């Protein structure tokens, strides 16, 4: 009755998840695995840029041709979201992360034998990107399965993998390059990425605890084969929709998506151009490179810290507002950057940039889980990543165009900052509206429930909006219930 794929929700709030997540125990090992997996996913495309000059010399290609390798990898990683969602829903996280890790390892190892740039596009860009996309989606999904009460903290810790691995991979890559050249380095990097398989092995599927027997009597009523056929039918229906466009009818989802698109558009350009801007302001080359390291270092600690703060009982119910605050903070940093001329203040800017960036990324998937609930999250995140592909690819070149046209970096920061601030404010205002509408609908629905019986068929005929509203209330209720139980 409350099987997630049936999408038929029972009125009781606890049924939304179907079980009480462990919120600890082996869950922390899963978080560690997700940390590794997400770490490789986000840091590999950036860390590869260390090899570009060597590859460029050897293969005789231009710098922009080589830079495409990273772009293709990131684009495929994000675009592969929906496919990855379907696979994760079908097979669970463990085999998917192990497959992803294997694909990444193989992609790097085969790339080390390459002698043309197209070969590298295919191996690193497409195969590597597919592997990473499998990793990313599956890791996020398993966190939503293992955690509810401590989910923001778990998300913060797992997302911290990105700056940690970047800080770790950058010097390691330099060393490998000096010792083995780019070919040997890619081979060894492929080996390191096989550790994602270890991360996948840690992602044990959730087994509910024994004490949860409250709903056992109800389930005994249904026949086993009835279950199977229902599951098969519904899975078949959902599998056909790789892009489940029904999500776009969900108000909360659309708001989240718009805000996120605006953020991603402005988020990466300052990172790409920070060193160039610093050198332009007269800072020396190595000091300019330090700015990014400072940002990454601050980011590393801010993500779990943000997760911890978001977990507190004051912030957790208002996590969407906290997310919009983080975005506005990030955008404001960028807007203030052009006023900075000296190196000392640039360091301060880099630190605040790290804080803002870390806060947003610690919360970015937590907010989606909060909106969608654990069942719909895999498909939702797939849809979100494929839509985010576009601003991510368009953002830095658009910013670069601004720099070329005006010859001044300050317009880049103004553009990025204003887009992000607008996104944050949009999220803030629209979330107020969304919660207001949800409260109204909930009140109306409670009146209705008081009057008629709720059966499965009736629920199935009601609109998508109501279903989401129940789901939403259920998710929130679940949080409150779980929290009270914990206390």
């Amino acid at each position, binding site marked *: 009755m409350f099987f997630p794929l049936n999408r038929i929700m029972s009125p009781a709030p606890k049924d939304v998840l179907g079980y009480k997540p462990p919120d600890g125990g082996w869950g922390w090992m899963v978080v560690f695995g997700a940390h590794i997996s997400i770490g490789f996913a986000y840091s590999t495309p950036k860390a590869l840029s260390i090899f570009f000059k060597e590859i460029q010399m050897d293969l005789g290609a231009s710098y922009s041709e080589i830079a495409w390798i990273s772009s293709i990898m990131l684009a495929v990683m994000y675009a592969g979201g929906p496919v990855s969602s379907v696979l*994760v829903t079908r097979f669970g996280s463990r085999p998917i992360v192990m497959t992803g890790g294997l694909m990444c390892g193989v992609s790097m190892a085969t790339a080390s034998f390459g002698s043309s740039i197209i070969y590298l596009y295919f191996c690193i860009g497409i195969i590597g990107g597919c592997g990473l996309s499998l990793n990313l989606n599956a890791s996020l999904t398993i966190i939503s399965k293992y955690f509810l009460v401590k989910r923001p903290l778990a998300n913060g810790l797992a997302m911290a993998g990105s700056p940690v691995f970047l800080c770790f991979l950058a010097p390691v890559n330099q060393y490998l390059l000096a010792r083995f050249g780019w070919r040997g380095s890619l*081979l*060894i990097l492929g080996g390191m990425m096989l550790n994602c*398989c270890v991360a996948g092995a840690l992602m044990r*599927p959730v087994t509910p605890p024994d004490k949860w027997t409250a709903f*056992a009597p109800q389930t005994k009523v249904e026949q086993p084969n009835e279950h199977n056929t229902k599951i098969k039918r519904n899975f078949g229906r959902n599998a056909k929709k790789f892009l489940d466009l029904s999500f776009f009818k969900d108000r909360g989802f659309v708001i989240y998506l718009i805000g996120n698109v605006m953020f991603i558009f402005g988020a990466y350009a300052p990172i790409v151009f920070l060193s160039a801007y610093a050198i332009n302001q007269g800072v020396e080359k190595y000091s300019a490179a330090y700015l990014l390291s400072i940002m990454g270092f601050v980011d590393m600690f801010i993500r779990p810290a943000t997760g911890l703060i978001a977990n507190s009982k004051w912030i957790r119910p208002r996590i969407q507002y906290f997310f919009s605050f983080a975005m506005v903070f990030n955008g404001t940093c960028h807007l203030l950057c052009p006023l900075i001329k000296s190196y000392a203040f640039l360091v301060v800017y880099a630190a605040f940039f790290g804080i803002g960036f870390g806060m947003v990324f610690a919360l970015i998937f937590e907010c989606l889980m909060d909106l969608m609930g654990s069942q719909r999250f895999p498909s939702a995140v797939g849809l979100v990543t494929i839509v985010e592909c576009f601003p991510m690819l368009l953002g830095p070149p658009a910013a670069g165009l601004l720099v070329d046209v005006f010859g001044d970096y300050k317009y880049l920061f103004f553009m990025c900052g204003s887009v992000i601030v607008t996104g944050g404010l949009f999220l803030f205002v629209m979330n107020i509206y969304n919660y207001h509408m949800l409260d109204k609908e909930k009140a109306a629905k409670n009146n209705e429930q008081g009057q008629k019986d709720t059966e499965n068929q009736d629920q199935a005929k009601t609109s998508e909006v109501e279903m989401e509203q129940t789901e939403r209330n259920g998710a929130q209720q679940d949080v409150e219930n779980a929290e009270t139980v914990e206390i």
Partner: protein
Amino acid sequence: MSASWKQLSSQILLLLISCRHINTKTSSPTQPPLAPITPLKTDVRSIVLKGESHTEKMELVNPVNLTLECTWTGNQNKLPNITGYWRKDGEEIQNSRLSVQFHNGQYNIQQVFSIVSEENLGNYSCVFGNEAKISFILEAPQIGEERDKPIISYVGDSAVITCKMDDAKPMPNTWNWYRYNGTEKEQIFVAAEPHHYEIINKERKTRLVVHNLTEADSGLYYCGAVYAIGTTMSHVELKVITFMEPLKPFITIVVEVVVLVAAILLYERSQSKKKATAGDGTTADQKNMLPQGDDNATEGSSSMRQRKV
């Protein structure tokens, strides 16, 4: 007649010997070639020194008669007469000592040097007494970006070594490539081994491609930018390694991954076997509540009865 022939031949012989002697004498570094032989362009460089020392770098491309002029404002003593002399590369140039007068508040010496070839380049210093010194470093345009890390390449692969002259500096006439074979730099001629080497010169850039690498190709390679005045060099180290070298760490990591994955899965299997033996009956119902996706997840936890969908 034979006696006069003998005399003539011995005189010619003596003349030849003395001429050669003169030649070797004039090419010694301590003698500045004072009298220009062929008409060269002239150039003047003057420096005024207020402190104790100053260094001036000069890039020369073509042979030139260079007048170097040093002016010193003097120190507290302000002696009316001091000795000034010139040095090249640290050694005093013979016959260059003069007495310098303190005139109009400064000491002034100048000297014309004929800079014709590479030996004439170097560090020329004018020294006032033993107190003040102005150094002129004469050199051909240096290659700016020098690669400090070695290029690593693999046996059987091709390696590309590049050299580039800055856009701000004058263009070289041509490029040469040399290889250090332990004792000296030996020029690489493509014609000698056309299948092994390939040199592509493009005004400011030059590329040396070494095909079919073997471990013997490891070593120092020099690119030389040829100007009328001389050649400036930049070196790069090439290291050729076999594929075994990165393969060893790779295999180590793969083994580590396999061991860890096996350990984790075995640990899980042993844990779930313990649970299964501990309490069996109640667990059967819980499978209804498992979220769909986790049912078929793993072979490791198959000790619990799973519904296959």
